[in-house]
């Protein structure tokens, strides 16, 4: 099963990449009409003030961070720095900044890096982006109000900056975040939300709140010859049915697809060749709250994993727009164990485990769920009869997104179904199950296992990359055995792309976030894209 899954993922990646990457030499000029599908509006053009993916789709075009995510190698890489040197103890990094220019014409300097990270940590500003820089030494103290500036940041000269971290983790994992961009220290802060000034390939041309963001090529962008496009329009389109019509009508150049549309696009010979898909780093799961007595027993949690036919749900309800999950870390994670096998569908084994644990026919619980077609109420409705067959009664507790987090943070739930980030940094996301991680962070199931903690701590202090990966694999396998959650699926993100669009990448972190500077359109594009 696993081999089939891995092969499928690999093939998918290859197919998607090759199918959409056949183009020849990039042609400069033209306009791309992109889509931000996660809401009808955006929160702010200052990405540090928001934690929402919808805003990131726009921010990625206008800003740049010290590192960036390379969707092709699945690794963070230097972006605003030409080179980096690591100290002997592996805690301090010295970056030589590249020659880059902000949209207002100012040059990037070390002061801008210091300003940007200190600003993020400033408690008075209360910026969600602060989460990204807390592993820099001294950032937590600034945020706690016990220091004014981050002690781990040091300007060596105008083009050189030194950053000291609190652990041996590669700083690229956090400093690549689009939520921690580098801003100009001299730019008025009160204009960041209305007239952003970044280092990205596009600058703001026009913003119609609730409708669209129009961007134009920034001629001073640091990559020679890029961006290829002259204009980039990001349409804020939440309704999937409306996006479908607009895409088929050629009004938009990409369409993020749900399960139903995925099935329809695959069956349409005109659309099928231009589907971009990738295994994203989201793990859909049902978390078991140990305050329900039965969930303290590993056999009960394992029994639920055996009792549900997730392959069937993925095939029938999700129309194969997902990969059945093996454990917590997704297939695209470097610490994913290709030899591990998922829980098979085995109701008899589930019954035996429940009987052994003393819950042969007396277990009932409710699942707090949002109305999401891929990881919400429809999925709970599908598992109800499956679990009923092994003597478990499940009910649904329907909520919206805000109430969901409220219930989880206040421990007011028995079980929940959700889609959570599980990558790309395996160490960071396995820490969600470390006993020291509070429930309000991401240890929603209050998982506590000293053996797991020790393994994770050891991995965090391991300077050898390969050894660290081996430990993380082991920790991930331990999680599977312990089953603190029902491992449902890893998201398969799917995007319909117009045939004239090239350079889009299968970004496993979030498919809707693209390296716009690499995107271009060919001669077959309609006239409206060439104006």
């Amino acid at each position, binding site marked *: 099963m696993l081999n089939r899954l891995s092969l499928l993922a690999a093939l998918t990646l290859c197919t998607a990449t090759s199918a959409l990457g056949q183009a020849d030499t990039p042609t400069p000029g033209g306009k791309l009409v992109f889509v931000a599908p996660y809401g009808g509006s955006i929160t702010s053009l200052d990405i540090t003030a928001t934690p929402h993916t919808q805003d990131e789709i726009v921010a990625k075009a206008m800003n740049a961070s010290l590192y960036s995510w390379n969707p092709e190698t699945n690794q963070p890489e230097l972006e605003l720095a030409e080179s980096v040197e690591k100290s002997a103890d592996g805690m301090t990094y010295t970056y030589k900044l590249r020659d880059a220019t902000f949209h207002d014409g100012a040059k990037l300097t070390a002061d801008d890096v210091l300003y940007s990270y200190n600003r993020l940590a400033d408690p008075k500003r209360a910026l969600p982006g602060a989460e990204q820089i807390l592993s820099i030494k001294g950032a937590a103290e600034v945020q706690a109000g016990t220091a004014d500036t981050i002690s781990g940041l040091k300007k060596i000269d105008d083009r050189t900056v030194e950053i000291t971290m609190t652990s041996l983790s590669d700083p690229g994992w956090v400093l690549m975040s689009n939520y921690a961009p580098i801003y100009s220290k001299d730019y008025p802060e009160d204009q960041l939300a209305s007239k952003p000034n970044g280092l990205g390939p596009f600058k703001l041309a026009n913003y*119609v*709140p609730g409708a669209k963001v129009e961007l134009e090529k920034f001629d001073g962008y640091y990559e020679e010859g890029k961006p290829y496009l002259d204009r980039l329009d990001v349409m804020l389109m939440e309704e999937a049915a*409306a996006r479908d019509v607009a895409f088929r009508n050629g009004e938009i150049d990409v369409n993020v697809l749900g399960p139903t549309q995925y099935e329809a696009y695959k069956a349409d010979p005109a659309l099928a060749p231009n589907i971009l898909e990738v295994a994203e780093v989201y793990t859909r799961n049902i978390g078991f709250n140990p305050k329900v007595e039965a969930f303290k027993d590993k056999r009960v949690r394992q029994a639920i994993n055996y009792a549900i036919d997730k392959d069937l749900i993925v095939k029938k309800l999700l129309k194969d727009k997902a990969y059945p999950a093996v454990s917590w870390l997704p297939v695209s994670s470097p610490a994913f164990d290709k030899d591990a096998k998922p829980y098979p569908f085995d109701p008899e084994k589930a019954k035996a485990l429940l009987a052994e644990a003393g819950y042969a026919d007396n277990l009932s619980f409710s699942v707090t769920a949002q109305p999401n077609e891929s990881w919400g109420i429809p999925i709970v409705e599908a598992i109800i009869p499956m679990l009923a067959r092994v003597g478990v009664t499940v009910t649904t507790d329907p*909520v919206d*997104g805000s109430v969901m987090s409220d219930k989880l943070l206040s421990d007011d739930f028995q079980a929940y179904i959700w889609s959570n980030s599980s990558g790309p940094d395996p160490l960071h996301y396995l820490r969600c199950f470390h006993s020291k991680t509070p429930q309000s962070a991401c240890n929603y199931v209050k998982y506590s296992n000293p053996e797991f903690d020790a393994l994770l701590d050891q991995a965090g202090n391991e300077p050898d990359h390969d050894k660290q990966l081996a430990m993380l694999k082991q920790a991930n396998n331990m999680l599977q055995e312990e089953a603190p959650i029902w491992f449902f699926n890893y998201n398969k993100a799917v995007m319909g792309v117009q045939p004239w669009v090239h350079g889009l990448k299968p970004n496993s972190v979030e498919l809707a976030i693209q390296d716009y500077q690499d995107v271009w359109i060919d001669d077959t594009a309609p006239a409206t894209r060439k104006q």
Partner: protein
Amino acid sequence: MMGFVLRRLLQMIPTILAVVLIIFFIFSVVPGSFLTSLMSEGRNMTNADVLAQMNAQFGLDDPIPVRLWNYVSGLLQFDLGISYRTREPVTSVLAPRLWPSIQLAIAAMTFAAAVGIPLGFMAALRPGSLFDSLTMVTAVSGLSVPEFWLGLLLMYVFALQLGWLPSFGYQENSLRHLILPAVALGVSPMALLARTTRAGVLDVMNADFVRTARAKGVSEPRLVRAHITRNVLVLVLTTMGLQIGSLMGQAIVIEKLFSWPGIGSLLVDSVSVRDIPVVQGAVLVIVLWFLVINMLVDIAYALIDPRIKVA
């Protein structure tokens, strides 16, 4: 007249206060908050310290009476507060949404009146005819068809199949972008206007003064123009006023479907993240629009029918 306008403006105050209180208390008791909405995607975690700082900055940890007092006292100075989400004044968040909403409401009503009133009139002049039956079937269908489905159908036919109009989006001063959402939103009031007009005309046609005028030899065209139309207009105007007043609030589904940046879609987005100051501001705008339109309708009564006094 000025006295009437002033009186009506004063009468709005208790209505507005009631709306403010209702919205405030509803969102004080419903579960979920702006802070928890920051984590609703299950993707990016927001640090607990940042959440605590936001809580303090937005006054979310103040007791409910303090929050209410702050809001009402701000409102009395025309200060609607700060949006939790965008951190801008609520008025700045509402302002760019207002004109698209008004445009859509007026365009939908124009379509509804231009089609519904003549249809209703003509149906009433030929009661029981095939035309009358067809008009009423259309009216009933128009009232019962879901806006979302109708909007999609219009997109499919006029954008995808015929290629005449764009399927979505907003562009300033672009009639082409306005037509489909306006028609989708206007079909229901059009149907209601057709039915109301037909009923009104039939009623007036059977009135004593019409029979008298007819007995006195007044020609049919003059009868319709001078006697029937004028008397039906009050009823039609009332229906139109109520409809256009409520269109801004009703436009939520259409705005979402067509990515139209109006007050309705802003309201939905703000509710989902519990941006309460913006929710309150958007509801206030919708209520004010309804009240002002109805006041204008009352004034129009006097212009149409001298028997009605508004002073």
